[in-house]
């Protein structure tokens, strides 16, 4: 690798040729503020808060887009640079509602931080402010265009990473805004509710459609039996909301906190992840034996499911009919659990605590009802539940840990890895191998399908059968595999697709402000949990065996189909 020597703020440093000034400065330990920059995508140089002074250059240059050169002398915080940044931020503020006190991002807003760091005390520009109504039409994503600073991060994620393009720059000049076409409400676009735009948004312009108030009401209602369930990724993300380093595991603290704020039961979505594997592996074996459509594609990511319904309605027969794990658990809570404990399902509120915004939309699907009741009544993101825990005055990080409640609280390591891209595939292979050969695998680690690559492939030997499998995360990657199937060129038997890049550990409901390192830390935590579990194969979960014996009968039985499987519908794309 050729290298380049340069000087930043008087410090000499050597970096790879082709690096940007921003990257070099970060390596040298100098923090340059950015707004429009998105690591991993090509820079647009739109916001210009990252400008720096380069000796010999006439104007200030945007460091996120400017490559380093040999002998370059860079200064990142001179008076001239500070003045330029201040003016840029002041201009943004002049067209921004001054609503910090009641804004959902108060305390973790990038615009606020920038204003504070630049020590801005006044906004000298006075002008017309752009006014626009909040769009709360989507059950998952709320848009507040007045708080948008037009950085374009959401636009690029939605287009380049997710291949949806539900929001884009529209109009021009003072009228420009980031919005769907014709200012359509988001719920009638083909937005898949993945929430990746929220993760990227530096301000409160994009946020989840909150269910916090509704959940508090249930918790205060003595007639309601309020049941929480938590997804695998939540336990490795929630610590960050309380200032812990990424990658901390807070399963027990989370359970304690939820029961302290008043949930009557705290169940583990992991239980249903094991159940998903048992059902899905059974379905896969059936499809292979009966010559039904292959490859079979996983169905636990509702963002992915909606994408498929909009863009690949012709390939719906390839989707596994398994409901997503939290919907399975919701269905069991409103049937099995309700019957066992003699509680009227209408008095039970199931609250799913998820790394995901797409699940907020999913719970409203009528096809997922259980005997006339919604299987899940509300979905809270990790951010929302952390806000509730703070409101309740709980010192989260120092809570004594507690176990999940039974009967729906036991899980294997195979369930934990659902949180990461490749995890569902690996978990399914552990069980499918047993179903196909009748023998347990000696080694349950499938390393080929781990890691953050967007598309992963593996050739797996099960007994004397060889299967090709693939894993994709992020919908632009999913598109590659789907186009192959459409052309009849897919070499795979089984495909796992997650809507969010990296899987649930980078879900749209996780803490904001994450980067690749954060996501990697969460991933390591997930595989650590798997390693430490007594059982690591879903079909060995004793609680699952009991559930089939007592209630469901066999995997794939009629009752299992009624409660654990679903149907899909073709949707228009726009």
């Amino acid at each position, binding site marked *: 690798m050729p290298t380049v020597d340069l000087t930043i703020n008087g410090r000499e440093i050597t970096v790879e040729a082709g690096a940007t000034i921003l990257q070099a400065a970060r390596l040298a330990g100098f923090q340059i503020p950015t707004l429009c920059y998105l690591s991993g995508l090509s820079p647009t140089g739109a916001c210009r808060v990252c400008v720096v002074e380069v000796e010999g250059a006439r104007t200030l240059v945007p460091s996120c887009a400017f490559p380093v050169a040999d002998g370059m002398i860079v200064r990142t915080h001179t008076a001239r640079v500070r003045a330029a940044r201040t003016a840029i931020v002041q201009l943004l503020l002049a067209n921004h509602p001054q609503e910090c006190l009641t804004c959902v991002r108060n305390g973790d807003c990038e615009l606020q931080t920038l204003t504070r760091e630049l020590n801005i005390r006044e906004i000298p520009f006075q002008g017309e402010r752009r*006014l626009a109504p909040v769009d709360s039409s989507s059950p998952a994503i709320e848009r507040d265009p007045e708080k948008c600073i037009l950085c374009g991060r959401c636009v690029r994620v939605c287009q380049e990473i997710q291949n949806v*393009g539900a929001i*884009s720059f529209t109009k021009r000049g003072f009228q420009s805004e980031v919005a769907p076409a014709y200012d359509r409400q988001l719920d009638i676009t083909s937005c898949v509710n993945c929430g990746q735009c929220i993760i990227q948004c530096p301000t409160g312009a994009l946020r989840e459609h909150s269910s916090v108030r509704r959940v508090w009401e249930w918790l205060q209602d003595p007639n309601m039996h309020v049941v929480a369930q938590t997804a695998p990724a939540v336990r490795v993300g929630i610590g960050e909301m309380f200032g812990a380093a990424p990658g901390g595991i807070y399963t027990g603290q989370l359970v304690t906190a939820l029961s302290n704020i008043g949930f009557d039961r705290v169940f583990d979505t992991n239980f249903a992840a094991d159940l998903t594997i048992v059902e899905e592996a059974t379905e896969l074996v059936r499809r292979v034996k009966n010559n039904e459509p292959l490859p079979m594609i996983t169905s636990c990511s509702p963002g992915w499911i909606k994408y498929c319904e909009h863009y690949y309605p012709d390939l719906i027969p390839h989707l596994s009919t398994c409901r997503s794990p939290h919907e399975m658990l919701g269905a069991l809570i409103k049937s099995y659990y309700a019957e066992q404990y003699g509680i009227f399902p209408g008095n039970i509120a199931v609250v799913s605590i998820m790394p995901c915004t797409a699940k907020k939309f999913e719970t409203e699907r009528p096809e997922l009802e259980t005997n006339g009741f919604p299987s899940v009544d509300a979905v809270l993101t990790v951010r929302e539940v952390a806000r509730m825990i703070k409101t309740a005055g709980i010192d989260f990080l120092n809570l004594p840990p507690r176990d999940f409640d039974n009967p729906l609280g036991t899980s294997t390591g195979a369930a934990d890895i659902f949180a990461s891209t490749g995890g569902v595939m690996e978990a399914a292979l552990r069980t499918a191998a047993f179903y196909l050969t009748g023998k347990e695998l000696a080694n349950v680690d499938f390393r080929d399908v781990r890691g953050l690559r967007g598309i992963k492939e593996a050739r797996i030997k099960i007994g004397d059968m060889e299967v090709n499998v693939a894993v994709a995360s992020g919908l632009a990657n999913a598109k590659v595999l789907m186009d192959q199937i459409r052309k009849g060129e897919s070499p795979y038997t089984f495909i796992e697709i997650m809507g969010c890049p990296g899987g649930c550990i980078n879900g749209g409901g996780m803490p904001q402000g994450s980067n690749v390192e954060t996501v990697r830390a969460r991933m390591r935590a997930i595989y650590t949990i798997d390693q430490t579990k007594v059982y690591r194969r879903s079909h060995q979960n004793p609680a699952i065996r009991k559930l089939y014996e007592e209630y469901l009968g066999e995997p794939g039985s009629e009752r299992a189909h009624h409660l654990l499987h679903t149907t899909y519908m073709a949707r228009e794309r726009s």
Partner: protein
Amino acid sequence: MISTTEFASIARLDNGHKNREVDLAAVDEILDSYRPLAPHALIPILQDVQEHYGFLPEAALDRIGRALDISTTRIFGVATFYNQFRLHPLGKHVIRICRGTACHVKGSAALLDTLEMELNIKAGSTTKDGLFSIETVACIGACSIAPVAMVGDKFHGRLTVKDIPRLVKSLKREDAKGAAEKAVA
């Protein structure tokens, strides 16, 4: 503090859903003429579609998006970025305000403001009832009678802000008379 012009821009939001019912056969023909389709054909396609319909109907944008595998939103972004594209059909009466130098000096900005307030729309858009559109033009070439507005192909010269409500009222009266005559006949 909300000014009337800002209200106008919010009110405009639902205007777009009106023109969904259009015959898209022409769009399909235009698309066919560009096969094999590639994203860079977008702008010429939009030009042809506008040529045919006089504007870009919403349903046409959806159809083009599906054909080119581009989201409607991105196409809308392109269509609203370039001045040449029109997202709404022109109203029955098109009022063009001249923004040339002579007219500017004689106060055409105030005329435009007044007209926008009177009709509750911005220049470049059409009232919800489809009666009026406001357009601005660089110079109509009638500088001797500045400031000038054109209604259809009629010139109105030496206008003052007071003339604007009168002008709008007379156009409305004309329509009402036309409608009454039709009813009688």
